[in-house]
């Protein structure tokens, strides 16, 4: 089964890209692939180039150092992502010392600074994970991810399991980071709303392939691919009178549909869509879509 098929994406420094897709579209796999923490029996074909270095060529020790220090990953479910037997202090000291030779006091100082920037009370640094709420834990996780000042932050559904208020706070923090530290952000989510708020560019995933890439402005106001259009249509606004959804369900990736993978659910599908796999073509400057009839949707 191919979780991802033929993905090509460039992230510039200081840029934030949103990866949007339904469950099973392969977006989480992408996040984990970037950090090379996929499960043992997965095969990765292709190139991951980070700051000019090809990650596939590096040895294990180098990759371990890149994780956390240069690329950081925050996960969706903060409740289970911290070791229940270690205090927050332990987590920070361990992370920092795993990459840099600093004294415990220095590490603690950095930890406290990171926590402060996430608005987590520093006095609670000796508490255990189970003594914190979900929102707090996510903030601690973000602080842990940022304490070594990585240049790329991969955020896999960082606010999905949190309530809207905490979500807003965290998004604010992410925007802040982008501005202050010029950190690149790969934001993986199914929520188009937060993408619109935080990201510069968007890549829309479907069934393991990219179906459209472009700036936030282009994607949200001038979408080309039918899937993107239907996604945007289904967003509920204050004046929504009728609910729109997309018929059908995401395809089985073990035996995906032939040709364009979206054709079974596409209201504009023609016979040729079943036969030819649409390439990701540029239809406007900086906007690519994988649809054989993209021209008609401009």
């Amino acid at each position: 089964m191919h979780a991802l098929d033929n993905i090509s994406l460039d992230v510039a420094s200081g840029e934030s890209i949103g990866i949007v897709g339904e469950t099973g579209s392969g977006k989480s796999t992408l996040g984990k692939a970037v950090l090379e923490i996929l499960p043992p029996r997965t095969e990765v074909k292709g190139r991951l180039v980070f700051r000019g270095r090809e990650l596939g060529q590096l040895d294990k020790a180098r990759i371990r150092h890149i994780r956390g220090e240069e690329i950081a990953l925050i996960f969706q479910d903060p409740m289970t992502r911290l070791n229940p037997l270690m205090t927050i202090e332990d987590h920070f000291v361990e992370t920092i010392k795993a990459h840099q030779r600093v004294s415990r006091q220095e590490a603690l100082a950095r930890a406290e600074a990171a926590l402060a920037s996430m608005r987590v009370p520093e006095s609670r640094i000796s508490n255990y994970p189970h003594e914190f709420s979900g929102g707090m834990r996510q903030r601690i996780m973000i602080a842990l991810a940022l304490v070594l000042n990585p240049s790329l932050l991969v955020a896999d559904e960082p606010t999905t399991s949190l309530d809207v208020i905490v979500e807003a706070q965290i998004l604010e923090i992410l925007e802040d980071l982008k501005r202050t530290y010029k950190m690149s952000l790969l934001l993986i989510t199914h929520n188009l709303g937060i993408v619109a708020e935080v990201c510069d560019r968007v890549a829309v995933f479907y069934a393991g392939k990219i179906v459209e890439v472009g700036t936030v402005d282009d994607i949200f106001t001038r979408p080309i691919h039918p899937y993107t259009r239907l996604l945007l249509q289904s967003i509920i606004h204050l004046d929504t009178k009728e609910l729109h959804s997309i018929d059908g369900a995401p395809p089985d990736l073990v035996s995906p549909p032939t040709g364009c993978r979206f054709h079974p659910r596409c209201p504009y599908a023609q016979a040729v869509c079943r036969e030819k796999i649409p390439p990701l073509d540029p239809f406007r400057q900086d906007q690519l879509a994988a649809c054989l009839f993209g021209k008609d949707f401009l």
Partner: protein
Amino acid sequence: MNSRFDISSSPPAAITGLYTIDSLLAGRLDLFIIAIRHLALPCLTLGLVLSGFFAKTVRANLLRTINADYVEAARARGIKERTIISRYAFKNALIPVITVLGLEFAILFAGAVLTETTFNWDGMGRLLIDSIEVQDYPLIQGTIIVFSFIIVLISILVDILSGVIDPRVRY
């Protein structure tokens, strides 16, 4: 007549009643060796049987923790794999194992009847079976009460130990 000691020598003076400790307290290393020699086979038997059970329990728990979310998160932070296995996977796997270990230890007080019979050892299990055979009800009741007491005591100790290791359990 039991097989805890040599027939030719006499066991050490009874302070605790345990031949190993008493012989050490009396400074008699030769008696200590004799006691250990007699302990070897019964202990090996019990240990061998239990080791299978523990191997299964530890394996099952380790499988659970090694795929845990916090392990994945730690790997994403670039923590060394060795540290992850010991500090994250193993330590967390050990918590339920300790509970089981404690309980098993308690049960063994009266539950090693077969070993005691085969090796001619005067244990509480043997006592219980013998009293059942002759239908000595006071002895049966007494043994069961003492045994239950031991189990409760050890259960409490295991609970306290769990609290020490696992911060989530503390009261």
